[in-house]
């Protein structure tokens, strides 16, 4: 048994402070989403009124539906591309400029979103693409692909190369060896990468606002424009639902990476 060391008073205080700093605003938002009152800051008792309101708000539901569709499709494309990139970078022959390539892959990770958004907008305008669902999906794929690549690559890096060699030794060509051995072992990281991409896409406002077109706003944009006219308690309800969705996704993602570490390998960073 691992011995749990007792926390000192100072540690308890700093932990409480840090958690309060992180979660108090969210907690207040969640509580106020069940507020019966029309006024956001006045408590009027418990009620599910604003959830009811949201489910009857066609425009909001449509925005949420679009966000979901964008998140699912961009996460799927990003996972595919990101996994391929990670495999190429960690498994391929050492080609010239490999370091440059991996650096370039990670650049969007630190690039200000405004720049990513603006550059994509310019591209779409230049291509004369009709802005809407697909432009936002492509933009989110650009953003999230590198996150997937990082997660998958770290998992690949911790994977023993000789496993693939053993598979080849036992009669697999390189492609079969990858499918039969490597893929099942990096699957948890791929799932985690997908979840990460999904949540990043779901709550992105900046890039979406650059790349979406009139009449098709994802949820964060919709919420943002509503809030500019004054915060309705309905927004609290929507946000609470989004938080719940993201919490579920994160729990699944961390369970997936736990599954990985229980197989005796290091977990994907999340």
């Amino acid at each position, binding site marked *: 048994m691992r011995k749990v060391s007792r926390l000192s008073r100072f540690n308890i205080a700093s932990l409480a402070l840090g958690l309060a700093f992180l979660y108090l605003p969210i907690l207040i938002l969640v509580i106020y989403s069940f507020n019966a009152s029309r006024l956001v800051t006045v408590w009027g008792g418990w009620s599910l009124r604003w959830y009811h309101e949201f489910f009857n708000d066609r425009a909001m539901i449509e925005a949420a539906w679009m966000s979901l569709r964008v998140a699912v499709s961009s996460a799927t494309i990003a996972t595919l591309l990101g996994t391929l990139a990670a495999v190429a970078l960690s498994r391929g022959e050492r080609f010239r400029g490999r370091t440059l390539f991996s650096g370039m892959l990670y650049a969007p990770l630190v690039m200000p979103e405004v720049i990513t958004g603006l550059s994509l907008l310019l591209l779409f305008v230049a291509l004369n693409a009709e802005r809407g669902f697909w432009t936002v999906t492509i933009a989110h794929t650009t953003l999230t692909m590198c996150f997937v690549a990082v997660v998958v690559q770290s998992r690949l890096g911790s994977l*023993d190369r*000789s*496993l693939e*060699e*053993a*598979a*080849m*030794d*036992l*009669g*697999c*060509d*390189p492609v*079969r060896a990858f499918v*039969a*051995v490597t893929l*099942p*072992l990096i699957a948890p990281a791929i799932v985690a990468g997908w979840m990460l991409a999904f949540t990043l896409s779901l709550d992105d406002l900046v890039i979406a606002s650059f790349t979406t077109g009139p009449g098709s706003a994802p949820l964060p944009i919709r919420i943002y424009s509503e809030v500019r006219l004054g915060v309705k308690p309905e927004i609290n309800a929507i946000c609470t639902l989004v938080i719940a969705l993201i919490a579920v996704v994160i729990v699944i993602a961390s369970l997936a990476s736990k599954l990985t570490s229980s*197989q*005796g*390998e290091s977990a994907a960073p999340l």
Partner: protein
Amino acid sequence: MTDELPRTDAAANAAGGDAHPAAGQPLLRIEGVAKTFGTFRAVDGVSLDIKAGEFFALLGPSGCGKTTLLRMLAGFEAPDEGRILLGGKDIAQALPHERPINMMFQNYALFPHLSVRDNIAFGLKRAGMARADIAMRVAEMVALVKLEGLEKRKPDQLSGGQRQRVALARALARRPQLLLLDEPLAALDKKLRESTQGELMELQRRLGMTFIVVTHDQEEAMTMASRIGVMKAGKLAQVASPRELYEAPRSRWIAEFVGDINLFDGESKLRDGHRLIIGTRDAGTLVVAEPREPIGAGRFAVAIRPEKIKLSRRAPVSEAGRETAINSLDGVIADICYLGGTTTYKVKLDAGGMVQASVANSVRLDVHAYSLNQHVVAWFTPDDCVVLPS
């Protein structure tokens, strides 16, 4: 005559690295194989024949190219030069899955997501074997390596020794013509290693399969292999049976690499029949058996294994007419290292040098054991010495 051994060994030695014309075609023939990584020549023109049914060991210090050579046999590296012939067919450029060769990896490389049974069956499924046959072969392999009852376990639920067995069973399951073992026992503790050595040898004999094992552990190589190839800096330094390698090393480096040895540098002075008289700086004049391969005048090293050196309190009584047959050196005990079965004494010679003698502790309460600073005579016969080019 006692001096027969070094002579025959030297003769076998000369042929060891080359062809075996009498044994028919070898199973594996490596011809002038070389591999360069960047500017580093990892394997530098190795030629070697391996007969079917041999247990061959590639022995060498780390970085000598033995693992690279093994990986070229398995197909994970392609040689830059030379040919690798398996049963007469050049496989140097064939991919790993196209070769009837299997390998047991150093870290075993068991698939962590598959059970013991599925690990063993992996290669059989790829070979397109029928399900019933696979089940039979897996059961056979499981019995062979004594893993009954563990078929459903995952590799992380096994001990190190059990994992080693799974890896062995997986590599043997396809009945390869040649099994490569990369440091197969390195991850096991000493006791387990010794028993596993025996099991591997037993298995190899029973299956009549050809094994090539790579190891840096000379005891392991000596125990298991019928022939050993010692590698140094990408080249084969000597290919010989364990006994030849130990008793008739071809070079000073091999003599020092395999086992412990006392070396005295010197110059040949006289030839007396089958004996050479060599004047050494550290041990005076030594009488040694003349090596089979004629050596010219010049500088030599006289090499004597520690267990060949006997210690006594007085100079040994010489039989009539054999006075010259014994080298005896006076000295004092400078260091005692008790190892259980043997004791290693370091004797500081009056002539200046230091000599190591390994004495079997054949008596439990040895009142005659030597003590520090005691005067002793270290002696050995001319046949106990090997003359090596300096």
